[in-house]
C-alpha cells in the first residue's frame, strides 16, 4: 500500500511534537554537580604517566594536576569536548581513552568486527553443510579428551604470542625514545620512593593541602609500612584534623626504639591521649625528657601545668 501525503503530514507533525517534548525534557534536566562533571571528563582522559589508567583512576601527581585543570576549565564554562581538545593539543590524540579510528588504532576497531564477521560466516557455512553424522569406528577410537587439552594448550600459547607481537613492536620504541643515556624515563621518575612521598606530603602539608598530604603519607606507608617518618607524619596530620581513631596505632611503634622521629611520635601520641589522664601525662613527660628543647616543649609544659 502506498502512503499518501494525507497520512504523512499528521505522522510528521506528531513526530515533531514528540521531538520537541523530548528536547524540552532533556534540556530541563538538572546539571550534575561539578565534581561529577570533572569525574566524567577525567574518565575519558588517559593518565600520561601510567599504563592503561584514566586520569580519574590514577593517583599520580600529574593526574591530580590534570583533574585540577579540568575543574578550573569546567568552572569557567568550557564544554567537556573543549576541555578534551585542550588536552589533545598538549598531549596528542592518545590522551583520549577512546581509541582513534586512524593509524594502528584502527585495528582495535576492525579486528573484533572482522572476527565477528568471519565467525558468523563460518557458522553460516557450517550450518548449511551440516549433515547427520554417523560416528565410525575410527572416530570412536580417537582420544577426544586429548584433543580438548591440545586445543586449550595451543590456545594459550597463541594468545600469548598474539599479545606479545604488537607489544614487543611498540614497547621498545617507547623506551628507545629516551635511550642513549642513563637518564630515567618519565615512568621511572614518577616511581617515587617512600622518602619522596614523605617529602611531597610535607610540601602539601605546608601548603595547607592536608588531604593531599595524608594521601602522600599513605603512599609512603604502602611502600614502607615500618617507615617512622611516614607513620609519624601521617599520625600528626590525622591528629590535627581530629581523626584520632588510628593515630595511636600508627605512632606507637615509633615511640619505643630510639630514632629521629621518637620525640615527635611521643608528642603526637600524648596529644592523642588527651582526656585520658595518666597515659597523657606520662607520655608527654617522656617527650619532654627526650626533647626538652623541642619547639613544642614550652607549650607542652604549659599544658601539663594547667592540669
Amino acid at each position: 500500500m502506498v502512503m499518501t501525503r494525507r497520512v504523512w503530514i499528521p505522522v510528521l507533525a506528531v513526530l515533531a511534537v514528540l521531538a520537541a517534548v523530548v528536547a524540552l525534557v532533556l534540556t530541563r534536566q538538572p546539571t550534575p554537580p561539578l565534581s561529577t562533571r570533572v569525574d566524567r571528563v577525567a574518565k575519558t582522559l588517559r593518565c600520561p604517566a601510567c599504563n592503561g589508567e584514566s586520569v580519574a583512576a590514577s593517583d599520580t601527581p600529574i593526574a591530580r594536576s590534570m583533574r585540577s585543570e579540568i575543574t578550573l576549565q569546567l568552572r569557567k564554562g568550557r564544554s567537556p569536548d573543549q576541555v578534551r581538545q585542550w588536552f589533545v593539543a598538549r598531549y596528542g590524540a592518545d590522551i583520549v581513552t577512546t581509541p582513534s579510528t586512524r593509524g594502528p588504532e584502527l585495528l582495535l576497531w576492525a579486528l573484533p568486527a572482522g572476527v565477528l564477521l568471519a565467525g558468523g560466516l563460518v557458522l553460516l557455512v557450517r550450518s548449511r553443510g551440516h549433515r547427520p553424522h554417523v560416528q565410525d569406528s575410527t572416530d570412536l577410537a580417537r582420544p577426544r579428551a586429548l584433543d580438548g587439552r591440545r586445543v586449550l594448550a595451543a590456545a594459550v600459547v597463541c594468545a600469548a604470542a598474539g599479545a606479545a607481537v604488537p607489544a614487543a613492536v611498540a614497547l621498545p620504541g617507547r623506551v628507545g625514545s629516551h635511550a642513549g643515556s642513563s637518564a630515567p624515563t618519565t615512568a621511572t621518575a614518577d616511581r617515587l620512593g617512600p622518602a619522596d612521598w614523605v617529602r611531597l606530603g610535607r610540601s602539601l602539608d605546608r601548603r595547607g593541602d592536608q588531604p593531599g598530604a595524608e594521601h602522600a603519607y599513605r603512599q609512603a606507608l604502602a611502600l614502607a609500612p615500618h617507615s617512622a617518618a611516614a607513620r609519624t607524619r601521617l599520625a600528626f596530620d590525622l591528629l590535627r584534623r581530629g581523626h584520632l581513631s588510628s593515630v595511636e596505632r600508627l605512632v606507637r611503634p615509633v615511640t619505643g626504639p630510639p630514632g629521629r622521629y621518637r620525640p615527635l611520635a611521643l608528642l603526637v601520641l600524648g596529644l592523642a591521649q588527651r582526656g585520658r589522664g595518666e597515659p597523657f601525662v606520662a607520655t608527654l613527660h617522656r617527650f619532654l625528657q627526650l626533647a626538652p628543647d623541642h619547639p613544642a616543649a614550652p607549650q607542652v609544659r604549659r599544658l601539663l601545668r594547667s592540669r
Partner: protein
Amino acid sequence: MTLGRRLLRPFSLTIGLVVAAGLVVGLGIALGARGGEAAGRAMLGAPAPALRGTTVTGVDYRLHPARGHLTLVNIWAAWCAPCRDEIPLLARAAADYRTRGVRVVTIDTRDGPVAARALLSDAHAQDLVAVKDPDGRLAVAWGATGVPETVVVDGHGIVRARRLGVVSRGWLDSQVRRWS
C-alpha cells in the same frame, strides 16, 4: 581435505579466534603504553604556552618566549629525588648560558615554597627562576607527563624539543647549539 574445510574445523577456528583476541589485547597494551612517547611529541613545532606566575621568592614573573631568546623550561619539585639531583646542573647551565642570551626558567610544581626554597638554597641555585605551580596546572599546560621534564623553546617562541627525565649537560649544550 581442502584448505577451506581444514579452516572450518573446531581446532582451527578456536586458534584463529584466540590469536585475534590476543592481537587485540596486545595492540591495546602497546598503544596504551605508547601514550607517554606520543605525549612528549605533541607540542613540538607548536607555540609555547604562557608561563606567568609568582616565583618561590615572591616575585611576579612572565615569560615572553618570542623575543629572540632560546629558553629552557624545566619542570621539577622538591619531593622528586631525580629533580634534586638535577637542580645544581640547571643552575650552573643557567649561569653559563646567560651571556649567550639563553634563559633557564623552572616551574616548581605541586610543591611548597619552603621546601622549594630550601632545595634551591642547598643547591646554591637561588638565582634560578622558579615559578610556583601549587596545583600543577602550569606543568599540565606545558604538557608535562611527570617530573623532571625539560622543554626547549626557540627564539620565535616555538617548542623545539622535550626531555623526559633528568637532563645531562651534553644534552643541554646540544640543544643550545642546535636552536640558538
